[in-house]
């Protein structure tokens, strides 16, 4: 019950605070994008390798680029008010459809990388904290630091060479075996084999972050009074670690993790390129290149939405982890 009422409070508070931020993102980016040289008509002509003055004018008219910027912005906001993300003239498709076709893949990659990095990171961190200052801690710390320092796409390239080229265990790119007409479990399995390498290379860096955070947070918590009290009560060291220390250390870890979700999408751009994963990072990058700004704004809106929802969820998680924390 308490959680439920808190969820409601948290949601309404977030909504009130987030709305201006989201609107700000739209307006700021819309104006920012006007500064990028060249427009969608230039891109299409550039790719086509031919154009005439008439086709260029026709393209601009079709894209609505012949109108003043403020009218374009007003049109866009009007679409948004009607819960539409607008239209991509380049792909001749509503932006909503384009994004929905990428969303499942993006969520799949983001969430699997996120969960993987959280689970492995927290496990590493707890392990390092348990052996703090002794050699297992030092060794794992160094390994984690290397994960933290190596460029993610580089790790991606290396594991492609190892697992797909040399060993042939896993596919090197794409999201599914095209034309295999798989259903049910086989389809799931197919998707999973394609998911392994990109999620690992996306997760590497975050694993390192969470491992380091968990370690330091656990060391911090260990010194606090309630842990000493638990020790005095005669609880076993493992029980203390799990029930009290880790549980409390999770709060800062999940806070930072919430901040990462939005960036996971940005960081996925390079990994999606390396693995040919049909996600939204790549869609956003292509949209910048193609000056297809309705699509880019759509992606930004959606990613901020994801961040906001994630933060509400994390807020709730905190309430469960530490009942003392009250909604501010």
């Amino acid at each position: 019950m308490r959680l439920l009422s808190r969820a409601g409070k948290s949601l309404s508070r977030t909504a009130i605070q987030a709305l201006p931020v989201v609107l700000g993102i739209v307006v700021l980016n819309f104006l920012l994008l006007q500064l990028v040289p060249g427009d969608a008509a230039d891109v299409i002509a550039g790719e086509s390798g031919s154009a005439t003055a008439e086709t260029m004018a026709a393209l601009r008219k079709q894209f609505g680029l012949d109108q003043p910027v403020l009218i374009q912005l007003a049109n866009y906001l009007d679409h948004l008010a009607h819960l539409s993300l607008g239209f991509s003239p380049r792909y001749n498709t509503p932006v909503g459809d384009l994004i929905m076709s990428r969303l499942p893949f993006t969520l799949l990659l983001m969430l699997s990388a996120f969960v993987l990095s959280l689970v492995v990171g927290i496990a590493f961190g707890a392990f390092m904290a348990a052996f703090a200052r002794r050699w297992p801690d030092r060794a794992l710390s160094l390994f984690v630091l290397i994960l933290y320092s190596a460029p993610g796409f580089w790790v991606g390239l290396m594991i492609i060479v190892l697992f797909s080229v040399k060993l042939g265990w896993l596919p090197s790119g794409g999201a599914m075996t095209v034309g295999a007409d798989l259903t049910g479990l086989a389809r799931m399995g197919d998707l999973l084999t394609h998911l392994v390498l990109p999620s690992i290379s996306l997760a590497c860096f975050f694993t390192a972050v969470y491992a380091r955070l968990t370690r330091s947070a656990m060391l911090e918590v260990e010194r606090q009074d309630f842990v000493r009290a638990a020790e005095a009560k005669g609880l076993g060291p493992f029980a203390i670690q799990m029930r009290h220390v880790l549980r409390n250390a999770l709060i800062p870890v999940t806070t930072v993790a919430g901040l990462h979700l939005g960036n996971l999408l940005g960081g996925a751009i390079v990994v999606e390129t390396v693995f040919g994963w049909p996600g939204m990072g790549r869609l956003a990058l292509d949209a910048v290149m193609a000056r297809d700004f309705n699509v880019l704004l759509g992606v930004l809106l959606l990613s901020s939405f994801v961040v906001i929802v994630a933060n509400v969820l994390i807020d709730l998680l905190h309430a469960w982890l530490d009942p003392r924390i009250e909604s501010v």
Partner: protein
Amino acid sequence: MSTNMTSLPVTLLAVPAAKNGRLSAFLRQPTFVAGLLILGVVMTLACVADLLYPGDPQDLVGPPLLWPFQKTEFQLGTDSLGRDIAAGLVHGARVSLIIGFSAASIGLLIGTLVGAVGGYFGGLADNVLVRVTELFQTVPAFLLVVVIVAIGEPSLKVIALAIGIASWPTIARLVRAQFRSLREQDFVMAARSLGYSDTRIIFVEILPNALPPVVVTASVMVAGAILTETGLSFLNMGDPNVVSWGSMIGDGREMLRTAWFLTALPGTATALTVLALNLIGDGLNEIFNPRMRER
């Protein structure tokens, strides 16, 4: 990659620094010393690049795709255009460090200003600045960098500026938290009663006390900026007029299978430098946090 910009264990450590025995504390940290040594070597190489390898590192000086040690004049081989890899690595160190430090400085400057003003004055100003910070934090940082670079052109200046603009929110949040806790402290009260101006209180009184965690974060920001530049160059959005490690990885990656050293060498250089910066960050972190030292 880009994502380093927001991470940082440091956000936990809004703890006043230990005041005494700092130097010896620094030197007691083997990892910190190792980090300093590595970074020192990289910096020295970057400084003497023109002496070691005079001339343009982008000049086509030899036959293409020589392997390391194949010819004595090109100890580390040549790339697909016949450019000297060793020269590229050394000159690239300079570019990577310049990008790293200038981007971090820009991020520090914006972040500190925003955080200090918001944290010190509170109220409406704070509210607005917090929203702006959130706005920048919600937009995926790497995407923002790409857009800014597309608006300008991929030159070192624009890239550094873009990475700085995308990375300041972390610092702003940190500085704001510091200022909020410090502004109620006695020494600030005293300064106020002496009639010091807000500017003076912010920059002369509070800021120095708020700096330790910021310095730690800054070292990691430099690392993050270097990684971001690598990712950008990898996507062919780097500055074509300078050799950077990222552009070397980008150029070499299509030959990953046949001439892996083209990606491995600059990749290792990047990882080592970033590692050094992170080691330094960790060292500073432990030194500035006395409670951690008790153990």
